[in-house]
Structures are given as C-alpha cells and as structure tokens.
C-alpha cells in the first residue's frame, strides 16, 4: 500500500507538471509573453502537489506505528496484562506484531491472536486513509497550481525557492547526521569515562580490556590505557607511509613526465585496479604472503626475532593499498601545473628532470601534501588489513618486527561477540572511536591548513 502511495504521488505530480506546462505553452502560443518559461510552471505544479503529499506520507508513516500500537495495547484484556512491567508488556507487543505479520512461534494465547487481528485491521484502515488523503492533497495541489498559470505569475522564482529549500534540507541532513554520530560517540565515551578515569585512559601504558566474571577472580581488573594502542596505530601508519609515499610519488612523476603515452595508457588503469582491490584481499595478502616471507627471510635467514604478526607486514601491505591513492593525487596535482611553467623552465635550458624536480614538483606540493595527509587519515582508520594481519596484544613498542595492535583492531575485538553495553570493556570501544575521530579530524584540519598556506604562496 505504501508503495502504491508513492507511485500515486509520482504519477499525479507528473500529471500536474504536464498540465501546467501545457497550459503555459498554450498561453504563449496565444501570443502572450510569459514571465516564466513553461517548464517552470510545470515545476511549480510538481512542487505544489508532490512535496506536501510526500511530507504528509512521511509524517503519517512516522506516527502510524506508535499510534496503532497504543490502540492495540489499550485493547489487550485487562486480566492478561494486569501487574505486568513495561518490559513484559513490550514482549507481548512484539509477539502480537510477529503474529500479525505471520511469524507464529509455538502456540500464541487467544488474546494475542485477537490483538494481532485487530493490529492488522488498524493497519489496513490506516493505509487506506493515508492513500485517500494523499489523493486529496495531490488533487488540491494540482488544482491550485493549474489555477495559478498566468502570464504574470512568477513560477520561476517559486520553483527556485523550492529548489534552494531542497538543497538546504540536504545539507542540513548531512550536517545533522554528522552531529548525531559525534554526539553518540561523545555520549557513550562519557559513560566510559564515568567508569574509568580519563587520565588513566589518556596516560595509561597498559591496555588489558578484560572485566571480571566473578568478583574474586585473579587479575580481574582491566587496564584501559590507550597509549600502546595508538602507538601501534602510529607505527603501522608510519610504515605504510614509508612504502606508499615514495612509490606513489615517483610512479606519478614517472607516468606523468617521462613515460611514453602508450605506457601511461597501460600503467594508469593498472594502478587504478590496485585502488579497487577490497581491503580484505589485502589482508589475505598480508597474512598469507608477506608475513611468512618476512618470517622466513628475516627470521630464518637473518636470524632476527620476528613475531608471527608483525607491524611490518600489516604496515607494508597497507602501504601498497595507499600507493594508488597517493599517486593519483600527485598525478592530478602535476597535471594541474600549467604548461607555461614547464615551457618556462625548458626554455631556460633546464632538462626534463630538473624541470620536474625544481618547478613542477614544488608547484604541485599543495595537492600532494593534501593527498598524503588524507592517506594518513585512511591508514589510521583502516581496519580490515590490521584486523587480519596485525596482532591483538597491545605492546608499547616501536619495533616494526614486533606484534602491535591498533585502535581499529581493538574497537572490533571489543564489540565482537556477546556484549552488554554497560561495562567498561564495551564502552572503551567508544572512547577509542572518539579518540580516533579527534585524531583524524585534527589531521584533516592540518591538511587543509597546509594546502591553503601553499596556495597563498603560489597563486
């Protein structure tokens, strides 16, 4: 029914559009100079009929559920619900709803069956009422819009107002979801900090997020110092950048400045394929290829102490993942340097490589720095590769051959499995998430600053 309602809105709005446009066209054919083009008259009808109907349906659907539930709950026999708490009542309501939608487990009580039937009746009444009202609204909108068609009518201004309203609405949605996400993070993190002092979290050097199952358990108290975790993230990020930045930059420079057009044509899509590889696959690559290779080479051949899950393996594979990211940013930045710079340098007797190194590269730095900082953000937030290839134990180390864990890995492990959202172990994930958010936000702000500073210098 809801689907039909939306179809109805679509159809009748289109009808309104055509009616109004044709009416305006007729006016114009009759020799009058219209203030607005016929399409705007059509658009006005579309907006006047479709928008209120759409808003109405959305509001209706929003309140329908709770309204129907309230009626059904009131209809439950008094002896069946007497003395029940809110939790038990909502269990009964859930059973009613499941029965109503045909999902019957076991033998529901008779009053539940009755309530389910009542529930279905109410819903179909509500649906029909909605359909009828929407039809009425649409007809009214079309009628009003059709009456307004006149040479002097400023349909264009109105349509533009509606459009700008829609754009404002869209940006408001974007902003509010962001605010909502941040707010939920902050809220949950605040609950965590009520249980664990914030100073312990920020400056603690031990991360052992377990909680006692029995009060008398040995070593039952967890430790929630995030330093080893964030240090692990930073170590892996650093290794990733060590791989990605030189390789990405040099390949971009080579492809942009030195490669023959044919090679460029072949190599660029290959690089882009690298960007399309799912991170899970990179994870496989890290545990099945890179980590064993490191162990057999570093451990067996060189005799270095190498743990099974090394920061080096996870970081270098993450670096490979970031190569296309950096090279495409650098490529864009280099391409954007005007040809006149190149010519100016060549005309002074500079060689191709001098030109790249001394003129093109510095001119492209804003774009490149922006790309690198965004890559850092991605590396810090990257989850899949590290979940698969980095360790789980938080050790306070910067040795790339050791096993480290990262913020994202810890968030995942804290939330996996059966969790209750009232103990520090689970809530710690939100605190970590909040910190991650703050770090990446700060990085992005710095990235924008840097880019702007260079822009000022070079524009």
């Amino acid at each position, binding site marked *: 029914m809801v689907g039909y309602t939306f179809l109805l809105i679509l159809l009748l709005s289109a009808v309104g559009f055509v009616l109004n446009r044709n009416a305006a066209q007729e006016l114009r054919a009759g020799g009058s100079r219209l203030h607005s083009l016929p399409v705007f008259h059509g658009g006005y009808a579309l907006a006047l009929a479709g928008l209120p109907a759409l808003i109405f349906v959305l509001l209706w659907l929003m309140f329908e559920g709770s309204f129907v539930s309230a009626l059904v709950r009131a209809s439950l026999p008094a002896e069946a619900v007497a003395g029940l708490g809110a939790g038990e009542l909502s269990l009964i309501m859930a059973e009613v709803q499941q029965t109503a939608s045909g999902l019957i487990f076991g033998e529901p009580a008779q009053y539940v069956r009755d309530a389910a039937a009542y529930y279905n009746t109410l819903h179909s009444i509500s649906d029909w009422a909605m359909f009828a009202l929407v039809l009425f609204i649409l007809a009214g909108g079309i009628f009003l819009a059709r009456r307004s068609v006149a040479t002097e009518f400023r349909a264009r201004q109105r349509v533009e107002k509606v459009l700008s309203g829609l754009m404002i609405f869209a940006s408001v949605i974007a902003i509010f979801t962001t605010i909502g996400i941040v707010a939920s993070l902050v809220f949950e993190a605040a609950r965590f900090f009520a249980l664990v002092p914030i100073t312990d979290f920020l400056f603690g050097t031990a991360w052992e997020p377990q909680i006692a199952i029995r009060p008398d358990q040995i070593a039952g108290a967890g430790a929630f110092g995030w330093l080893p975790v964030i240090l692990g993230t930073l170590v892996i990020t650093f290794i990733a950048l060590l791989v990605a930045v030189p390789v990405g930059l040099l390949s971009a420079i080579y492809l942009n400045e030195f490669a023959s057009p044919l090679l460029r044509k072949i190599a660029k899509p290959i690089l882009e394929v690298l960007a399309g590889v799912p991170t899970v696959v990179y994870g496989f690559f890290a545990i099945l290829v890179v980590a064993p290779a490191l162990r057999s080479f570093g451990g067996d051949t060189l005799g270095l102490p190498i743990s099974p899950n090394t920061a080096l393996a996870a970081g270098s594979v993450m670096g490979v993942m970031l190569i296309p990211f950096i090279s495409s940013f650098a490529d864009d930045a280099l391409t954007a340097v*005007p040809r*006149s*710079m*190149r*010519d*100016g*340098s*060549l*005309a*002074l*007797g*500079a*060689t191709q490589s*001098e030109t790249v190194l*001394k*003129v093109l590269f*510095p*001119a492209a730095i804003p774009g490149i720095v922006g790309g690198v900082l965004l890559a850092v953000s991605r590396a810090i937030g990257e989850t899949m590769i590290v979940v698969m290839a980095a360790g789980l134990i938080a050790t306070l180390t910067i040795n790339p051959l050791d096993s480290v864990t990262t913020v994202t890995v810890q968030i995942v492990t804290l939330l996996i499995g059966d969790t209750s959202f009232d103990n520090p172990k689970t809530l710690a994930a939100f605190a970590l998430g909040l910190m991650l958010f703050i770090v990446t936000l700060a990085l992005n702000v710095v990235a924008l600053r840097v880019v702007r500073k260079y822009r000022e*210098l*070079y*524009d």
Partner: protein
Amino acid sequence: MQDAITNALAIKVACDKVNVHYGDTHAIKDVSIDIQDKTVTAFIGPSGCGKSTFLRCINRMNDTIDICKVTGRIELEGDDIYDAGIDPVQLRARVGMVFQKPNPFPKSIYDNVAYGPRIHGIAAGKAELDEIVESALRKAALWNEVKDRLQSPGTGLSGGQQQRLCIARAIATAPEVLLMDEPCSALDPIATAQVEDLIHELRENYSVVIVTHSMQQAARVSQKTAFFHLGFMPEYDDTEKIFSNPSDKRTQDYITGRFG
C-alpha cells in the same frame, strides 16, 4: 645612415628554407631569414600565420610538441642547431625566451632569477649569484621595485612586474639571442612602455627577436621587420622601409589595415 650601421653587423642566426609541419598542417613554408646580432628584429603578421611557430624553431622549443616536425637549416653563429651533436638543453641556455603570458615560477623573486644560473652552474658562489641576480634585475628595470622583497613570491608581483621578472630570468643565463613572443600582450600601456624601453637597452648586448601584433610597437622597437603571411615570409627588410615603402602587396595590405 642607420642602414650603413645595421648592415655592418654580423649575422647571428641564419635560417635557410625552414619548413614546419604540425601533423598535416604545414605551418611554416620555406622561410629563409638572416637575423643580425645586436639588432631588434620584429615578426609581424596576422594571427595564425606562424610567427610563434617560427620563433620556437630558433630555440628548438618545438621539440617539446610531439607532432611538430621541423626541416631546413638553422645556424647559430655557423653551427647547425638541429645537428644531432647539439644538445637542445645547451642551445636553450644560449637562446633565451620570454613568453606571451608572464610565467614566473612559484618561487621567490630571487630564486626565479637564480634558476638558470644555478642550473647551468654559472655562479661560483653565493656572492656571485647575488651579483648576477642583481644585475639581471637591474637590466630588466625591476631592481628598484623588488630589492627589498627578493624573498617574496614572484607570483605576487603585478602583471608588468612579472613579465619583467621573466625577462630578468631569461637574461640571467646570459643568452646570446633573446626571443620574445608577444611579451606585452598581457600588459597595460605603462608596463608596455617599460618593457619596450628595456628591449631598447637589451639591443646593445643581444640579438632580440620579438613577435608582436602591434605594428606601432614593431616600428618603435625594431630595426628589422619580417612580415609573415599564411606560413610564408613575403618580406623582410629594415623596419623603416617596411612601414614606409613595402615592396610586397600583402605587406602593404597588412600595414594599411586591409586584413589581419
């Protein structure tokens, strides 16, 4: 009197039957011209007739355009510049170029001017480099305006100052020939007058070739003028002669504004 002087000057660049093709477009057709030392030579003609193309032949900037093919012979002081033994990079150090649109590098004023000398290792030390930069900026009549802010970006200068900076950058490498492709087309009248004064002075040391779409400018700054038309060069003579008594009908039509 002037004829006597100019004719006595040595030939700097000798071009013989130069042809240029861009793919299928035949842009320069059998152009032969002897460009004198210590002379300003102007290239005039309707747009699209090949002035820039021909200018770029002289420092082999056409090499940077893939589809461009140059044939014929161009000699700089007797050496064939298209000879396999000639490195275009070294040639361009001897034949400087100033472009239509000012194109300072995104570097400080000082680094812009020092760019060429640094690349070619002209200066022995910091002091000598400072000297070269100062003298180039002085020759380009820019020194007084920028001497207090040599470290600020060259891109922050006004259009006329930027173009003079580009000229300073070109002369800092001490070229023998200076090619200028409509150097004043992006400038206001005051900046144009400054650049023209500058060209006048440059003539004492260099052979200057300037492309211009303004006949007044050609008449003001040049001693020799070459007229280009549809890839040909119908006439090349003393500027005075070209503007007072051209021998070719097409030149006459162009001078009197019949086309272009």
